[in-house]
């Protein structure tokens, strides 16, 4: 197990390096001059040049790349060209908001999605199944920003029970979390339903019923556990979708997370922050994939990592 973990961590180093190189190239290929964007339209050429020099943007590209990698090796992501603060503190100020939002959303998505999937599978071809499957399709089809706005109109403007935007108090996360979870709920419900249907038709389920196990036990201990493997994969993959959705959700709800930080930084051509956020997302992906693989072993004891 430990060897496996160490190997996985070592394998991720070239991946991170690859991502770092790719994102460095991509941001530097973007049209637009960061020094000009920072200086503003009324700035004199001297102002623009001074800012370009202060930010090191007057150095050749390869030199900027090497110093970027050199700093990265020391855990230093550089300085934001937009705010002049260290990138690590820019990200630190925002990452927790996204983590909170993504975590709550995935919890909602798993709880609601798995439950709905199990119910739909056991009531196959009933009105309930139809309703859940319909809702699941709606869930994966409704655009995040439309759903977000509709929830705001209902709960913030009409009923006035929840905040419309911002991260003011404990209730302010409710609407963004539901909005963000919606897509994943639909996806997980559909996966759970089909996996459950497959398992429910198998011999061991019949055996379990034959030996007199209660329906509840049959469903949860025997069927669901065996159906979970593809669902766990789905949940792992949903994480990526959540981060993508976070960009939109965070904009609609003015949630100060890294999704919005990323988009804003692209518009400001704030290269160090873009690089930092993308690297963070890449690392998060690697970690989530690792966790997913480890969870396999928990769900299915036949899987061993040595």
């Amino acid at each position, binding site marked *: 197990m430990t060897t496996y973990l160490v190997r996985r961590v070592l394998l991720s180093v070239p991946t991170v390096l690859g991502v770092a190189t790719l994102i460095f190239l991509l941001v530097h290929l*973007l*049209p*637009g*001059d*960061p020094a*000009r*964007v*920072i*200086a*503003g*339209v*009324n*700035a*004199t*050429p*001297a*102002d623009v040049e*001074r*800012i370009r020099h*202060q930010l090191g943007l007057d150095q050749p590209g390869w030199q900027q790349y090497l110093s970027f990698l050199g700093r990265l090796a020391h855990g230093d992501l550089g300085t934001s060209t*937009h*705010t*002049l603060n260290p990138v690590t503190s*820019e990200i630190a*100020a*925002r990452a927790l908001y996204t983590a909170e939002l993504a975590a709550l959303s995935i919890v909602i998505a798993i709880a609601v999605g798995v439950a709905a999937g199990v119910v739909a599978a056991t009531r196959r071809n009933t009105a309930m199944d139809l309703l859940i499957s319909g809702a699941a399709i709606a869930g994966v089809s409704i655009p995040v*920003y*439309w759903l977000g*706005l*509709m929830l*705001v*109109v209902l709960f*913030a*403007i*009409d009923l*006035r029970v929840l*905040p*419309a*935007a*911002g*991260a003011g108090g404990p209730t302010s996360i409710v609407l963004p979390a539901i909005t963000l979870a919606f897509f994943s709920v639909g996806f997980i419900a559909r996966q759970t339903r089909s996996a459950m249907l497959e398992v429910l038709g198998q011999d061991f389920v019949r055996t379990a019923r034959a030996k007199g196990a209660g329906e509840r036990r049959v469903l949860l201990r025997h069927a669901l556990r065996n159906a979970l493997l593809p669902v766990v994969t789905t949940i792992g993959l949903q994480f990526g979708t959540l981060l993508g959705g976070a960009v939109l959700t965070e*904009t*609609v*709800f*003015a949630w*100060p*997370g890294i999704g*919005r*930080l990323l988009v*804003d930084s692209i*518009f*400001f*051509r704030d290269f160090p922050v873009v690089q930092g956020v993308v690297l963070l997302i890449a690392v998060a992906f690697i970690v989530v994939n690792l966790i997913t693989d480890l969870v396999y072993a928990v769900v299915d004891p036949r899987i061993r990592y040595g």
Partner: protein
Amino acid sequence: MRNRSLTSLLLAGLVIAACGTGSTSSNTSAGPKHGDKLTIAVGIDPDTLDPAAQTTTTASQVVDMMAEPLVNIDEKGVVKPLLATKWDQSADGLSWTFTLRSGVKFSDGTPFNAQAVKFSIDRLINSKTQATQPGVLGGKSGIQSVDVVDDANVKFTLGSRFAPFAAAMTQTNAAIISPASASVAPNTLTHVVQPVGTGPYKFKDRQAGDHITLEANKDYWGQKPNYDTQVLKVVPDATSRESLIRAGQADVIALPPGNDLPALQHDNSLNVIMGPSDRTIQIVINTVDPKNTLLQKPAVRQALNYAVDKDAIIKTVLFGAAVPLDAPMSKALFGYCSVGSYKFDQSKAKQMLQAAGASGMTVKLLSPTGRYLQDSKVAEAVAGYLTQAGLKVEGPQTADWPTYLGTVNVAPARASTDLHLLGWAPAYMDASQQFQQFLPSQIPPAGLNTSYYGNPQVTELVTQGNTASDPGQRKKAYCDAQKIVWNDAPWIFLYNQRYPFVTTNKVKNVTGLPNEKFVTSWVSPA
């Protein structure tokens, strides 16, 4: 694209909302003048609160509440005393002496005096200050030295004559901060994070991307603020800002979605204020276009001006949030004079194009998206009018701001568009700033004269206007120059944008300034 669908969807949502509970009626009680917390939603998270590094009005508006310059402007754009009570220039126009208000203290208790002014302005023109933006105040022609005459008088020596110096000193980058505060963490001499000035509010806290909280400066030297705290929420999406004020969770919002202006105006619980602005919006014409030499002819450019119905665009695309231009600059600037109008006349336009051999000419149009009120939609409308006048219009192509800027801010030889929609807002209310758009010395990459226009007569008149010490003489020179620019038509002169903001009817006294700021420091409960 996303914004467009967002707003139209919200419109649908608002219809539902209106059917559901009726309009959001207010539960006003005859409140006292004093208020606890005012919540303002703005679209941009200030990049920095360091006065010396200011470039955007939203950020400057926040800084203005904490730190004040020596002079500022009124609602009409006229320079008025603030921390200085009077100012004079020497006979040669190279030195300016400002007399300072006495008995003023910074919010950290440090006394405000000539030394503090010297400290702040030296910091602005010092190239070691991070991202400092001295603009016209710096460089070879700007401030060369700041001298403390005595506690209450400070003298600025300029590199060359500059008549609008006092106007330029109204900019937020010339705000005065407490010298002691600049070395108190988290501030450093080169980068101020929490400015300490003489303003009506003090910095309290900030969550990046979410909000900035300011608290009242109880010892403010002037009229005391009414609200204990003001919270500036950062809400980038216009539709989300609208949701906040409709939900009663914000008292003031900047820039609501353009196409919701009529709906907001019908809501009795809200006040839509069309704030003033010095921003002109124009279609800049490449006047030296080698690929399209017809655009080098003033008659063709005038024809393009006749071809576009400015009034209709203002009414239907901007929902009234603009006034048509009658000069190459906004009324708010010192030196403005009304010089004419290209009244929409399609047949005249066609006739002029034909006479110049320009019928059916192909033009390429570029517009930024999300930079100015309804920008790309206005460009679409302009493209429509030009097509009706018989031109072939490629575009409008749209691009995000940095890409757009990278495309138009290039030397004439590298120009790739014939026409582009551009907004220009002088940093201070003086014609000299607007004329940067029409001087050969400002042709990219040196400046942003992206029409590449130049006329020796105009240049001469502008130099007179920029240096003459007699205001009447300055006005005359600028006015004559405006007439020439208007006839040479390097732009399709569109409109002077307004800067709409919305308040609930529970608050009053939010005033808009022509530099696209709205002042909330003296807001009181209605």
